[in-house]
């Protein structure tokens, strides 16, 4: 498949040493080279043809790549050096809560007693795991002010869809046919997509000029066909929906339920509870608020907690404590069924419980307080040269706009993002939420120090200065990274999704 092989020992793709392209695993491959070592089984070496009918056997061979262990290590270690991460520096990414991921939680996940357990092993042999998950469910319920939860959803989006199916099951059980879900225009894209997959239609509620749900429009949109509303609070621009009680009342009065997108839970954990605001369903992104690492895009975990009236429909099985004190798995007959192949992203769940155990109630409250403190400090500090989209106290994140810079100097949000890479920071979230023109959303999280916030502010100040004096240099940014700005259009136009594509 490959007729040449690249040197594994040459490190010129390493930012430490050069700027070469890193060969692919396939380019490094040499036929006959090997790396794997397996146990000596002592089994009779019967030919495969004697075990499996030839109709099933692949007449050719699936080629992987044939590299030495030395080259395998060099390749992936070098790739890791071409990758930004929380462990290297700040990610002020709004809506993502890229906080420090405690190594302690990794150590928990590395316990053989946890990661060596087969998911179909009977309850009697997995008491530790079931208890762990049972406790986690209790903690999440306490944190959100709900009555029960499922731990199965593997990420936030899966949690959303699960929550919507719970809302559906609730209405159906009451014989009600409701077809619409309200969503504010600032919502994350997963929300409308989940609504559709939940079998509902989306009705978009515009935000008012304060960046909040327009209560009057909302009330007008309600009706007997509305199954519920999906909100994030604080919402995706980082503002608290101050009229949440009125919203909840209006929705409940019309027979609808309230869904809480918990992506922004970091702003309120230990301070407020979605349940107290009137929400019926809450998903949590454990990979945000509870610091389980993002893994370059996953795995996450998106448990869903619900109020009393939705508990009967929760996916099963759920961990339960039997009368004799032992732990077991239980599914109600009214359950909507499973939403994951097994019990959810169990090791992620264990990490989250580790995080919660260390913090406790007081620690979690401090998390929210300092996350909000950092965001507001940054908002005020940045307002000296970059306008906030909404100029008042924010929660855990703050949304700015580069619209003025764009108008004046042709420097877009993206240019600022790329400029920030050159300055030693990951970029903020850009162009989300859609309701803010040239949005730049900064979420510092509580684990960054004020020194880092100040350094970020100074970097942004320099970039704004460059926008005035040398906008071209920002269009050309970043230049210090392993690759310079990549051609995204070409990637889509001439799709090459595998090394074999031509």
């Amino acid at each position, binding site marked *: 498949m490959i007729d040449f092989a690249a040197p594994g020992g040459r490190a010129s793709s390493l930012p430490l040493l050069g700027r070469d392209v890193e060969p692919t695993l396939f380019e490094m491959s040499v036929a006959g080279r090997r790396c794997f070592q397996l146990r000596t089984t002592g089994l009779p070496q019967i030919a495969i043809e004697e075990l499996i009918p030839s109709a099933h056997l692949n007449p050719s061979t699936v080629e992987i790549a044939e590299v030495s262990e030395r080259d395998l290590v060099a390749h992936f270690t070098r790739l890791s050096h071409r990758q930004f991460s929380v462990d290297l520096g700040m990610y002020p990414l709004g809506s993502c809560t890229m906080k420090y991921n405690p190594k302690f939680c990794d150590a928990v996940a590395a316990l053989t007693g946890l990661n060596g357990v087969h998911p179909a092993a009977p309850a009697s042999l997995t008491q530790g795991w079931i208890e762990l998950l049972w406790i986690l469910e209790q*903690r999440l319920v306490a944190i959100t002010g709900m009555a029960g939860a499922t731990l199965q959803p593997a990420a936030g989006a899966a949690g959303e869809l699960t929550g919507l199916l719970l809302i559906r099951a609730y209405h159906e059980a009451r014989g009600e046919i409701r077809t619409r879900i309200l969503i504010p225009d600032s919502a994350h894209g997963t929300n409308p997509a989940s609504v559709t997959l939940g079998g509902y239609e989306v009705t978009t509620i515009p935000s008012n000029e304060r960046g909040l749900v327009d209560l009057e429009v909302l009330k007008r949109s309600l009706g007997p066909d509305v199954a519920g509303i999906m909100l994030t609070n604080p919402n995706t621009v980082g503002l608290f929906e101050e009229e949440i009680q009125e919203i909840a009342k209006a929705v409940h009065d019309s027979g609808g339920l309230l869904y809480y997108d918990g992506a922004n839970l970091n702003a309120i954990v230990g301070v407020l509870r979605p349940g107290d605001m009137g929400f019926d369903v809450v998903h949590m992104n454990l990979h945000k608020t509870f610091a389980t690492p993002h893994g370059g895009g996953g795995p996450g975990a998106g448990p869903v907690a619900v109020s009393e009236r939705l508990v009967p429909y929760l996916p099963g099985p759920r961990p339960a404590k039997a009368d004799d004190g032992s732990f077991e798995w239980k599914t109600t007959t009214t359950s909507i069924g499973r939403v994951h192949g097994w019990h959810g992203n169990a090791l992620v769940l264990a990490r989250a419980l580790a995080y919660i155990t260390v913090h*406790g109630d007081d620690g979690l409250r401090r998390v929210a307080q300092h996350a909000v403190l950092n965001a507001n400090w940054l908002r005020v500090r940045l307002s000296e040269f970059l306008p906030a989209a909404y100029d008042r106290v924010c929660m855990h994140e703050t949304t700015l706009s580069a619209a003025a810079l764009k108008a004046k100097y042709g420097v877009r949000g993206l240019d600022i993002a790329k400029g920030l890479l050159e300055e030693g920071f990951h970029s903020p979230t850009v162009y989300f939420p859609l309701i803010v023109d040239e949005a730049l959303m900064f979420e510092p999280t509580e684990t960054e120090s004020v020194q880092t916030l100040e350094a970020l502010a100074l970097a942004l100040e320099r970039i704004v200065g460059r926008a005035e004096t040398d906008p071209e240099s920002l269009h050309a940014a970043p230049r210090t990274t392993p690759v310079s700005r990549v051609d995204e259009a070409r990637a889509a136009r001439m799709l090459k999704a595998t090394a074999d594509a031509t």
Partner: protein
Amino acid sequence: MADYIPHTTAEVADMLEFLGMNSLDDLFAHIPDALKLSRGIDIPAGVSEPDAAVLFNEFAARNDAAKLLCFAGAGAYDHEVPPVVKALGSRSEFVTAYTPYQPEVAQGVLQAVFEFQTLVSRISGLPIPNASLYDAATGLVEALNMASGVKGRSKMIISAGVHPHWRQTAHTFARGTGHEIVEVPLVNGLTDWSAVDCTNAAAIVVGYPNFLGLLEDVSVARSLADANDALLIVGADPIAAGLLKTAGQWGADIFIGEGQPFGTALSYGGPYLGLFACAEELIRKLPGRIVGETVDTEGRRAYVTTLRAREQDIRREKATSNICSNQTLMAVTAAIQLGWLGTAGLREVALSCARGAHYLFEELKSIEGVVRLSDEAFFREFCVELPIAAEVAIVEMAKRGFLAGVSLAQLCGDSDLSTPGDLSRKMLIAVTEKRTKSEIDAYVSALREVVAS
């Protein structure tokens, strides 16, 4: 209470002063008081890491299953994960990175995922892979949604040989999409397609091997799909690609698979790795992220997430999938594990699984009362009927150091078409390349003892 907050008291005071505030509570002044917790949340006070470690070590110690020699499978397999793969897959740049939305500082994850995609494509025999889904069960759901998006139909024909949890998950999500799911029963362990009405079906789904470990003749399903203009979805054990025909070779339009066998520990079921690939013409409905090759402004090869317009953050309510975070770290790990295995290693693992399973299958003959459920061809897993309840046998075998298998009754629940009759005495047994002959021999002796007593 412990936390990871750097702020000193003095710094907090300074920061509040900068904001013109007096206390941290002022930050929340705009929130209705009625909503604020007065007594905190009802969870225990925090403890230090080493105190918490005591607790978690206790949890771990009470999972006896972790200490047993594993003969359980049912979609989760005890494969070798060598130290080198663990070391590379746990590099903190991969672990603590965000989704690679800024490609200039994310070439590490992007290239690793590109390599993963290439490997998924080769293993599936299909040209268009994605960057991963949550697991195989939700992968099935995505595949069904894709089929319905492509075909504009909602009837789904699913073999009862597809893993029961995958089918259950499909049923759950069908509540939202309104898909009509028709399950096709098994006869003698293999799908009996004879009575099923596939007219108007969007997709036909078959497991290969099916969840009882048996090798289905996928060409029958392919013919049915052709005859009814439906898509063929094959859910395959990716380890089988070391020996058996790929999904693509059987003519599948969509491949789904559970990627856990590629470097991910058993982990009590997660995080695992949903593998997904499809035919060229289905690309616009592909769920999830896809990484593509491109160049930077200086013409150097570079990678980027592409075809974003399909995804929920751009398409919103019109997207056919809502997936956002996926299982990237497991995908990176799978690329590493496959790089470790190489062509020969993947074949060797598959062969060793098959040999071990067939050896055990033969040896079990010698135990009176243990009936092998089917004589159809199988790969690395098979089902037996015991003279005692499978759950009892498993608990007894555990005392002897073995996780003997998976009880079908526990796995399937009550109403499952896949294995008619009394499930309670049926047990699924899997063998991986980690099991030696002497371990298998010891297993047979132990099981003989258990069924005799």
